[in-house]
């Protein structure tokens, strides 16, 4: 697998929680944890699903009854 080096700023508290999670042995290392978190986020926020919800909002907003 090819890897890309990225630089990111994280909220201090969130980074500390993630480091504690890794230190407790729940993830191989910080990189793996970040990759897994990103993968899960992208899976659950698939663009087509988001778009379908926006279309629902348009329909309800403009033509709903309540």
């Amino acid at each position: 697998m090819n890897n890309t080096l990225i630089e990111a700023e994280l909220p201090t508290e969130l980074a500390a929680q993630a480091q504690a999670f890794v230190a407790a042995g729940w993830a191989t290392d910080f990189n793996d944890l970040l990759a897994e978190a990103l993968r899960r986020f992208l899976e659950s926020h698939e663009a087509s699903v988001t778009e379908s919800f926006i279309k629902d909002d348009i329909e309800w907003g403009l033509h709903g009854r309540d």
Partner: protein
Amino acid sequence: MEETDQRPPLVVCDAGPLIHLDEVGCLDLLADFPVVLVPGEVWREAQRHRPSVLVQSVVTLRQLTSTRPVPPALAAMARLLSLHAGEMEALRVALEHDPALLLTDDTAARLAARNLLIRAHGTLGILLRAIRRGQRSKDELIEVLRELPKKSTLHLKRSLLDDVIREAERLP
């Protein structure tokens, strides 16, 4: 609840719509609903990210915290979709106040809502509804939509926002 019912429903708010509506000066649109419930965890998120939402006087927000056990279906959904604490509590409160309308801008939370048979809409729905309900004129609302990328932290693909604006412009 069937959308044929014309009465505005009780709403349960996640943090996103509270913050995004306030960013574009439209928090007052929530005053059209009989009750706006804000779960405790969502309240704390709003306190962290946009405390002004909680001290305004345009809409009454009722803070509440669920004391009942988390339904197993919701617990499973929260794990599957990696829901945040606020999203999970909003879903839980919506389940407890069936047939409430959940307001959330999070796709995962909306997926969970769909699976749990909870009606859910987001900030865009509330904004567009304002035209239908006579809370804003079409022109006023289209201006809000145009300013959305500059004024709001709601992330939306530009082409999709253009579609939304076109739909609004088509109204008589």
